[in-house]
């Protein structure tokens, strides 16, 4: 058990034995498939005509929005060119089906019918027709486990669609599936009904996909942060068809903006998952410091993963930063000043960025 948790070599064993377990899942899925098949076969013509009409109408609406979108996309790319900002992660998608649900009440995981043989990889984002659903955590030969965003161990970097306010949406710890926004100050402009979209800061999930809708905002004077709950838009327990996002390689390599992190000093990795928390600094009081210490522990799993994934790119950025620092070694203070200036210049991209996030507390 401990070996499985600490080391990777058992994964290979798991992977091999999973060849044996796949048929069992296949058989267990038969009743569902039979009922779906029956639904497909025994359907009246009238129902089909109705459905057809409805689908046509939806298509019409979708096409109209698509036309608008084309205009917006070109405008957006022009604006981005002006800012010389990096492109967002969009990527293509392949479909998959959910064939099983974890029977552990404490965890929210589902099994999909795509695995290593279909090119699924760990950390791949999973969507359904309505929003972000989760990410792949374990890849088996023909199946893979997906951790849903409503799992209490999962944190999703999100931002409010209306004003770009950033936060981390964490799966709720209660029995009811939902999301909680963590460490959002009382002053944050988030109201009921706000749409939360993925901010793409974790570099796991594609940017701007709808994640959840805020259902309740409670300002408790006794607590340092607002209690904000949200309902995920993806139909976690009803949908069967999901999409796996295949990110475009060249796009990903251009995502990190190391200039921002020059101010953070060398030897520190930019912890993008935690970026939303500079709001902590706007809040006063020492008790918040204590809160801060507990943060990384909770999110350690995901943050660690993100770090591992990102080590290549940011270190490259840091190296360049280091060489720069070496060149301007004699005027060290000036160097940091320019770094701060560049960070200020990029303020339009990341308005609330303050250098060293709570990432330094990471275990």
């Amino acid at each position, binding site marked *: *058990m401990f*070996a*499985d*948790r600490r080391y990777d070599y*058992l994964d290979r*064993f*798991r992977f091999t*034995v*999973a060849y*044996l*377990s796949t048929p*069992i*899942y296949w*058989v*267990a899925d038969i*009743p*569902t498939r039979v009922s779906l098949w029956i639904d497909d076969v025994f359907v009246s013509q009238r129902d089909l005509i109705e459905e057809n009409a409805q689908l046509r109408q939806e298509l019409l609406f979708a096409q109209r929005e698509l036309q608008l979108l084309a205009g917006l996309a070109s405008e957006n790319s022009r604006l981005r060119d002006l800012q010389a900002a990096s492109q967002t992660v969009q990527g293509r998608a392949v479909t998959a089906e959910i064939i*099983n*649900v*974890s*029977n*552990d*009440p*404490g*965890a929210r*995981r589902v*099994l999909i019918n795509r695995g290593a043989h279909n090119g699924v990889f760990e950390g791949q984002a999973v969507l359904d027709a309505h929003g972000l659903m989760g990410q792949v955590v*374990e890849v088996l030969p023909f199946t893979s*486990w997906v951790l849903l965003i409503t799992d*209490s*161990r999962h944190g999703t970097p999100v931002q409010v669609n209306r004003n770009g306010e950033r936060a981390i949406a964490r799966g709720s*710890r209660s*029995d009811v599936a939902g999301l909680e926004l963590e460490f959002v100050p009382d002053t944050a402009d988030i109201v009921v009904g706000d749409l939360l979209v993925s901010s793409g800061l974790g570099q796991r999930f594609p940017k701007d996909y709808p994640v959840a809708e805020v259902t309740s905002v409670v300002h408790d004077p006794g607590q340092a942060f607002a209690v904000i709950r949200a309902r995920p838009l993806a139909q976690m*327990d009803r949908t069967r068809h999901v999409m796996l996002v295949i990110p475009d390689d060249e796009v990903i390599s251009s995502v990190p903006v190391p200039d921002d992190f020059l101010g953070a000093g060398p030897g520190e990795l930019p912890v993008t998952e935690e970026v939303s928390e500079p709001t902590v600094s706007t809040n006063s009081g020492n008790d918040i410091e204590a809160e801060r210490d507990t943060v990384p522990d909770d999110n350690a*799993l995901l943050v660690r993963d993100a770090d591992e994934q990102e080590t290549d790119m940011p270190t490259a950025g840091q190296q360049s930063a280091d060489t720069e620092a070496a060149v301007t070694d004699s005027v060290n203070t000036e160097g940091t000043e320019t770094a701060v200036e560049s960070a200020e210049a990029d303020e339009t991209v990341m308005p609330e960025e303050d250098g060293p996030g709570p990432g330094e507390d990471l275990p």
Partner: protein
Amino acid sequence: MTPRANGIWVIILSFLVAYLLEIVPFPEWAMHYRPAWVAMVLIYWVMAIPYRVGIATAWFAGAFLDILEGSLLGMNALTFALLAYITLSLHQRLRMFSALQQSGMILALVGLSMMLSYWIKIGLEESSEGSLLFLLGALSSAFIWPWLFVMLRHLRRGFDVH
């Protein structure tokens, strides 16, 4: 000393069916009532033919369940081995029990194994602390046990498994 093995495939088949039942999707509200099929089948075989099915079998049965469920490798293996050990030491008494008494024992054993895996999961932060509603699974296991017992005994005698 021990007689020649016969009808091993019946044991394997019963385990396979148990695995199937273990992962068949349940509706949300019935989630907590899922009986511990594999554990029950294991207890039966350990009780009926302890010289054939023992702690080693229990370990591998548990490890396979771990892979099937995607849980931590070795968690179910450990709890099943413990179950097999307790059953081994009690099997002669268990055989004498009435159906009701056996159900009570199943309640205790399955409850213990569920509690143990819950503790492991909490201790290793694999899962968050939640309600203890999952123990309802032990209750439904105890409820199903008499029928399962009769069925498996029928199988064992019919195919002369030993």
